[in-house]
């Protein structure tokens, strides 16, 4: 039993990691300079670093989203929360606030409020997650535009811009932020019982209720974490372009985040999560984009390939499809032995 569960655990990690490896190998074959990394002016440069840097916002969203999906929920509003957080921090910078902690704090608090709204609707009013977060997805962009007064607000604040374009220990700062967030959330969920509670609520709500778990508070906390991650991603995106664009900041990124979690092998029915695999999923999406560009396929095929990837991953996860595949193999094997038997009888 123990070896079986260990095997399954290993297999969970095998597929996403193998997928990423295959994509990386394809990239190297197409463009041998892909793995080339240069150290210049105190930071690394290269395609690989670029992939890490560009995957950072989706990776941050995926960290929060994997917790939400583990409770059998989904958060469609993360893209809008990115826009709100970017707009709020831009607002404070243009109002002359110079203290970096205050600016970042304001963005995070805006995100936290959004998360509390989502968590309240899902946890305490028991509204379906898709619908509850749809409200903020629609209204959120309107709120961000309200904060920006309909303009694209640009700003000049070197401290805040560091979030998006700075570097630490040679790595781009967004990547460092992803690593820090990953470490904090991983510690919170795997070194305390919180992770287990989240999985229990997703796997079997009534059983976890009888166990005495406070499902409402747990749901509230995961939507808050997801919103905080989104707010951080939104500030990175705003710092990157030194401006806040309420219409386009984080547009469609909620879908990429869900896709990253699904590629990471989590079931949308909830009950299990791996933050590490969700980040691998985000890296796969970004590497795939680079592969498409490198291989000379026009970027317009990007969406079509992504859609095919989701369908294949979903089918591979479906128990019926696995059975059909197994039957296909089995039928081949049996038909060979049957013909051999018939030959003998004749």
């Amino acid at each position, binding site marked *: 039993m123990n070896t079986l569960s260990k095997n399954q655990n290993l297999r969970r990690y095998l597929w996403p990691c193998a997928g990423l490896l295959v994509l990386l190998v394809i990239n190297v074959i197409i463009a041998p300079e892909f793995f080339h990394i240069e150290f210049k002016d105190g930071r690394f440069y290269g395609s690989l670093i670029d992939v890490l840097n560009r995957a950072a916002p989706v990776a941050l969203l995926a960290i929060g989203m994997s917790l939400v999906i583990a409770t059998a929920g989904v958060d469609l509003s993360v893209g809008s929360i990115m826009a709100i957080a970017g707009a709020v921090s831009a607002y404070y910078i243009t109002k002359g606030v110079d203290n970096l902690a205050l600016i970042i704090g304001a963005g995070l608090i805006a995100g936290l409020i959004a998360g509390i709204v989502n968590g309240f609707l899902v946890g305490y009013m028991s509204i379906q997650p898709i619908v509850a977060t749809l409200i903020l997805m*629609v209204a959120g962009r309107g709120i961000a535009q309200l904060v920006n007064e309909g303009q694209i607000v640009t700003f000049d604040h070197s401290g805040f811009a560091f979030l998006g374009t700075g570097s630490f220990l040679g790595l781009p700062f967004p990547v460092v932020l992803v690593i820090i967030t990953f470490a904090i959330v991983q510690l919170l969920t795997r070194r305390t019982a919180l992770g287990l509670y989240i999985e229990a609520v997703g796997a079997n709500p009534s059983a976890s209720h009888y166990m005495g778990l406070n499902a409402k508070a747990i749901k509230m906390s995961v939507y808050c974490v997801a919103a905080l991650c989104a707010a951080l991603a939104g500030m990175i995106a705003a710092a990157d372009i030194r401006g806040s664009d309420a219409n386009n900041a984080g547009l469609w990124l909620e879908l990429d985040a869900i896709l990253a979690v699904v590629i990471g092998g989590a079931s949308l029915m909830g009950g299990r999560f791996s933050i590490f695999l969700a980040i691998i999923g985000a890296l796969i999406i970004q590497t795939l984009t680079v592969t498409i560009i490198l291989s000379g396929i026009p970027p317009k095929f990007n969406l079509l390939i992504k859609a095919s990837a989701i369908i294949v991953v979903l089918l591979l996860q479906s128990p019926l499809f696995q059975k059909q595949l197994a039957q296909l193999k089995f039928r081949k094997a049996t038909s060979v032995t049957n013909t051999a038997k018939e030959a003998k009888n004749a």
Partner: protein
Amino acid sequence: MLNRKFIPLAVTCCLFFLLFGIGSIQFDGFGTPRVFFNLLSDNAFLIIAAVGMTFVILSGGIDLSVGAVIALTGVVCSVLISKYQWHPLVVFPVVLIGGTVFGAMMGAIIHYYKMQPFIVTLAGMFFARGLASVISEESIPIEHEFYNQVSAFGFEIVGEAWIGSSTIICLMVLIVAIIAAHYTRFGGRVYAIGGDANSSALMGIPLAATTIHIYAISSFLATLAGIVYSFYTFSGYSLAAVGVELDAIAAVVIGGTLLTGGYGYMFGTLMGVLIMGVVQTYISFDGTLSSWWTKIVIGGLLFCFIALQQLLVRIKPR
């Protein structure tokens, strides 16, 4: 005494007349038949798409591919008409059949592989938009005599109100949908599945056929909505109609249909679209309010109606 099952529908209708009334008192020329019928003709494509969405939501599912299917339809139509010189009357059946098959495939995957409608139609949305941008990334104009005739077709009724071809199509779709949902066996099955899929399977309702039909109808109507949409824009563009699926879902919810399925009325969906249209018209009449207020107001309305639904479900008489 009003039957409780009509409460959400009644609230929706009252809200519409209230908003329309406020607008009429505040602005000259708001409370005219012309403004009312413009609501219909401006939102005809949304009404058609939302009717399809109502079937899906009544069955307890969701269809996120609607906006992408509208864009894909526009692109395919414009390429076939402008590049290959097909006659629109040949193009329309082809794209409608294509759209229906697309929806049927999504329905089949949802039913046979037991996947969540949300993720399957999300993949469908990526697929349709991806296909549209592969066919053409630029906006393609449609130039055909037939298009000019169709979009000019219509007649005037009282008070300068204009009924155009898109209004006629959308009202016809609505009437057929009301009959199909409330007076046919198929409609009964949709409600039954939305109420409880397990019980309806035990009752002998063909789950597979009904689910596939529902998603096929939704995509068929989205394709029709795409054709109507191309009557306004005279072009096909792969990034057109972004977010229409959310507007359609919002209209269905504001129209009083329960998102968990099994409860709601086709007529409510019409009122839902009209309410969103009135909000937009009010903001454009006012002139000082900015366009983003539309999003915030619709978000607020969504919240109120969902809260109302929860309240009604909770205080159900036993």
